Structures are given as C-alpha cells and as structure tokens.
C-alpha cells in the first residue's frame, strides 16, 4: 500500500478538510447546541414565570394580610365603641333607677309623714272626744254627788285648761 510522504500538500485534501470542519460546525449547531439551548431557554422561562407567580402570590398574601388587619382593627373599634356605649347606657340607666328610687322613697316618706300627721290629728280628736265623754261621765258622777255648781265649773275649767296646755 502506498503512503503519502510525511509532509505533502494536496489541494483536494485541504478542501475536504475545510468542508469537514464546516460540516461538523453545522452538526454541532443543529444536533447539540440547538436542542440543548431550547431546553435551557424553556427552563429559564419556566423559572422566570415561577418567580413571577411567587412574587404575585406574595403580594396577594400581603394585601390579604393588610385587609385582614384593617378589618380586625375596625372590628376592635366597633366592639370598643359598643362596650363603652353599653357602659355609658348602663350608668345612665343606673342613675335613673337610683333617682327614681330616691324620689319614690321620699314620696313614701312624705306619705308616711302625712299619714302620721293625720293619724295624730285623728288621735287628738279621739282623745278630745274621749275626754268629752269622760268629762261628761265625770260630770254625771259629780252631779250625782250633788256638788256645788261653782265647784263643778271650776273643775271643768281647770280640766280643759290642763288639756289645752
């Protein structure tokens, strides 16, 4: 078999080698870089979209939290308002009841005093009547004893005086 000498230049061989490298470059582009780059790009896109989704979700969560906080604050305010209203109302109602009770007590007392006064007057009248009766009886008894008229008079007068005084 014939061999080339160790250094020999052949234009066709050079041309073939030139074409070989060009073809291999195309092969690399078409069969290695293109598919791998496609996958890498897709992955990058996926990651980007995942990040975007995560950020959006975070923002939404933050907004929800804010809304929730605001609602909580509003609720707390409302309940505070309600409690203070209720307390104020209770106080007012309590003082009303107290006043009423006091008025009522005074009225009862006044009534009682009135009653006592009337009772007293009645008792006085009763006593007067009783005294009159007693005096009448006494008079009858004295009359029965045949007393002197001046004695009689003087006795009654002193008796009445005593009563009035």
């Amino acid at each position, binding site marked *: *078999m*014939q*061999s*080339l*000498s*160790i*250094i*020999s*230049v*052949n*234009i*066709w*061989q*050079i*041309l*073939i*080698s*030139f*074409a*070989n*490298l*060009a*073809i*291999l*470059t*195309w*092969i*690399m*582009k078409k*069969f*290695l*870089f293109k*598919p*791998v*780059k*496609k*996958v*890498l790009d*897709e*992955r990058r896109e*996926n990651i980007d979209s995942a990040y975007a989704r995560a950020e959006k979700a975070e923002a939404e969560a933050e907004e929800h939290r804010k809304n929730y906080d605001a609602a909580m604050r509003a609720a707390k305010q409302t309940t505070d308002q309600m409690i203070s209203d209720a307390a104020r109302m209770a106080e007012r109602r309590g003082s009303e009841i107290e006043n009423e009770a006091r008025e009522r007590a005074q009225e009862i007392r006044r009534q009682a005093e009135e009653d006592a006064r009337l009772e007293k007057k009645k008792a006085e009248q009763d006593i007067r009547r009783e005294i009159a009766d007693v005096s009448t009886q006494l008079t009858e008894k004295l009359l029965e004893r045949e007393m002197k008229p001046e004695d009689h008079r003087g006795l009654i007068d002193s008796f009445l005086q005593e009563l009035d005084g």
Partner: protein
Amino acid sequence: MTDEKRGGDGRFRTVDRMLIALMILPLLLCIALKVLYTPEGSGGVDIAGAMIFFEIPAPLQPLIITESQVNSWAIMLSLLALCLYLTHGLTQKAETRRQLIAEWIVEKCEHLVGENMGERYAGYEYLVAAIMGLSAFSSLSCLIGLFAPTGDVNVTAGWAILVFCLVTYTKLQGGFLNYLKGFTEPIPLFTPMNFISEFSLPVSMAFRHYGNVMSGAVISALIGTALRGLSRALLGAIPVIGNIPLLQIGLPAILSIYFDVFSGLMQAFIFAMLTMLNVSGSFPQEAWEKRQARKERRRQRTAAARA
C-alpha cells in the same frame, strides 16, 4: 445504563444502544481498514504519512482519499452519534447524566466564546465546539491504533484556511477599502511584510498543530524502534524470550500519555483559542462604527427624501 431504567419503555433503550453502536462502529471500521491495508511490517524505521486508499484523477492534483480523510469522517460520524445520544430525551428537569454533560458542554462553550470574543460573536461557539471536538478526538484516535488525522498537514491546513476566511470576513466588516488600507499601515513601506504576516496566520496555525502531533508520532516511532533494536541486541541470545521485544513495554506508553493525550488535547485547546482571539482581534471597531453611522445617515436621508 441507569438513565434508561428511569427513562422507561424499551424503545428508548433500543435507540440509545443504536446510537452508542453508531459511535463505536465507524472507529471499528477504520481499525479494520487499517489492519487490512497495512503492509507486512518491515524491520526498519517506518515513518510515513497517511496511507492512500485510492486516487481519483482531478485537475491540478489527483484527488486522493487517504487514511486521514477516512478517519476524519469516522470521527465526525462518531461525534454526530455522540451529539444525538447526549441530546436524546432532553427534559426540563435534567433527569439524566448525559443531559448534564450536554448542558455542561454547551455552557462551557458559550462561556469560553463570551469571555474571549464578546457578545457579537455568539455564533462562533458552534465552530469552537467543532474545532475542539474534531481536533481532540482526531489526536486521541491514535490511542486505538489509527493514524491521527491531525498528523496530516492537509487536515490542519484546511481548518486553518477556514479560520483565515473567517478572519478576513471579520476584517471586511469595516469595508473593502478599509481592509486594503489596513495593509499599508503604519507606512506603505510595510505592505509586503503585512501581506506576509497576513498569510502567516493560517500557515502557522496549520503547522503548529500538525507539527505537535506528527512530532509526537515520530518520536514515539523512533523510540519504539530503538527499544526493539536494543531488546534484540541485549536479549537476542536467549532462546524463546529473545524474540519478544521486552524493552518496548512501559516507556512508549508513558510517552504516549504526553504526546498523544496531553499534547493532543492541548493543541485542540490552543487551536480553538487562536481561532477566537484572531477572529475577535481582527475586528475593525472604529471603521465598522463609522460605516454604521454612514449607513444610518443614508437611511435617514432617503427616508427624508421619500417624505
């Protein structure tokens, strides 16, 4: 294959096996060709270029198909099969090891080109990957007993001329007149020297790569022959053992690690680096900018005239 087990059905694995077979088959065919065509071994030092398989008459020079062409094609086929294997069944989650390898290769090439050449030359990553793959595997092919295509000056010359064309194309971005003017700088007297330096680029690239690989092969052949002779002289008298060249064990293998593996990979890297630096370094930035500005002005003028 652990990847395929995860991959699932049987068709998957069949395709993969076929691709792996396609990777190995061309190289085996080349070995077979080499074994079939190698003449009966002669005793002396046998240093020659690639074997010629056949010749086709053509203008200028006969078109000869040699070992280096055939081996190059075999390596290209293997690389194609490798690419197909690596990119088969790509998923977004990168479940297989080969996908990681494929992504690693792509990202490394992008990084290398981006770092050495810049944004403008993103398309050169295919060329850089091709040069690295072809050159490295060509040089390594002598490990399986093939003639390394990079040990043939025609092969590296073809690659260097491709690089030269790209360099010239890049220079022409600044306009043809600027390109011609570039030869007369810094003074017109330098024109012949500029021409020489221009054409020394492909020559130096071709011979650097070829010389490194070929010199390694020559040294290996010389040392191998010398050791055989030494072994025959020292141990020849012993009846049975004397026929075996015992001294050839060891040293050639160690030398092969340097000359074939290290030097081959190094030259592949150097060739790719020189390609990137020469192409990006030859770009006439100022002239290109001026040209773009002129184009822009012309476009505006025509737009204004139309309006």
